[in-house]
């Protein structure tokens, strides 16, 4: 068992991130790019890396209030991500709807459709807040492995 635990500790050092844009205004996406690309914040210190394919992902970051048009596509992409996965809702839109709350065109809050684990509120959240959320997600992912 200790060997397996050591393997898990090793695996938890490199969680790969995947972004789903659920009709976001791109504010949160810019902050996510900032978190990864600007050396000042640098989420890659935690071993995280954005990956291009959902099949490689461990932690999924969802932005945007999940518009009705994108709901189906987002669900299909989400189902392609292998278990165990941790879902992080970035920004107030996926958490509650934000200023789009109760609109006919959005399906927010997204926890009706996806099992969300960590919420990062903010409009947009600052890069350090996103790093804080990702750190929480990594802790949850370690438990699920």
């Amino acid at each position, binding site marked *: 068992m200790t060997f397996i635990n050591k393997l898990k500790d090793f695996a938890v050092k490199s969680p790969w991130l995947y972004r789903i844009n659920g009709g976001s205004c791109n504010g949160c996406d810019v902050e996510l790019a900032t978190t990864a690309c600007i*050396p*000042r*914040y*640098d989420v890659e*210190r*935690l071993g995280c890396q954005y990956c291009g394919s959902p099949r490689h992902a461990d932690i999924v970051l969802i932005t945007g209030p999940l518009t009705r048009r994108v709901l189906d596509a987002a669900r299909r992409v989400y189902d392609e991500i292998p278990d165990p996965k941790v879902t992080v809702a970035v920004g*107030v839109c996926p*958490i*509650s*709807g*934000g*200023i789009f*709350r109760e609109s006919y065109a959005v399906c927010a809050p997204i*926890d009706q459709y996806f099992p*969300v*684990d*960590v*919420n*990062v*509120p*903010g*409009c947009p*959240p*600052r890069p*350090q*807040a*996103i*790093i*804080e*959320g990702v*750190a*929480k997600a990594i802790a*949850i992912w370690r438990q699920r492995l």
Partner: protein
Amino acid sequence: MNFLTLFARNLWHGPYTDVFPFGPATTPEHLRARITFDPKQCEGCRLCEKVCPAGAIRFTRTPGGMTFDCWHATCVFCGTCEFYCPTKAVKQSNDWHLAHEQGEKYAQVEHGLIPNQICVECGAKALDTSPAVSHIKPPLSETEVSELRARCPKCRNKYLRSRKTS
């Protein structure tokens, strides 16, 4: 020559990366983040509820008085509530540590209660709100403000009218 000074400076300066998850983060002083509410200063005008674009602020009348609730999971941190608050009872702090797990989603609320009080003059039950005194001339003294505060809205009007005539 310029690159050598840059090289020397970078050697001396060390990495520019914020240490945040492993240490304290640098936070600007005027960052707009978590809302704070002081029920002692609130006038009860409910302007913040009206101007909030996300509908995050809600006042509710309860048997104990009036409650203020601001849900941070829908607040967009625009600062409009602080701008319009006449007494600065609603303020924005720079505490941005709002990331939470799903179970605590509905606990991300700034809650405050403006209690009921008994008016010292007529004995009616009224909210213990801060009196709107900023525009009154000549300005009220501190004892006058505390006397005004202990009254219900009707008796406050009466008090101010009697003050004008005397």
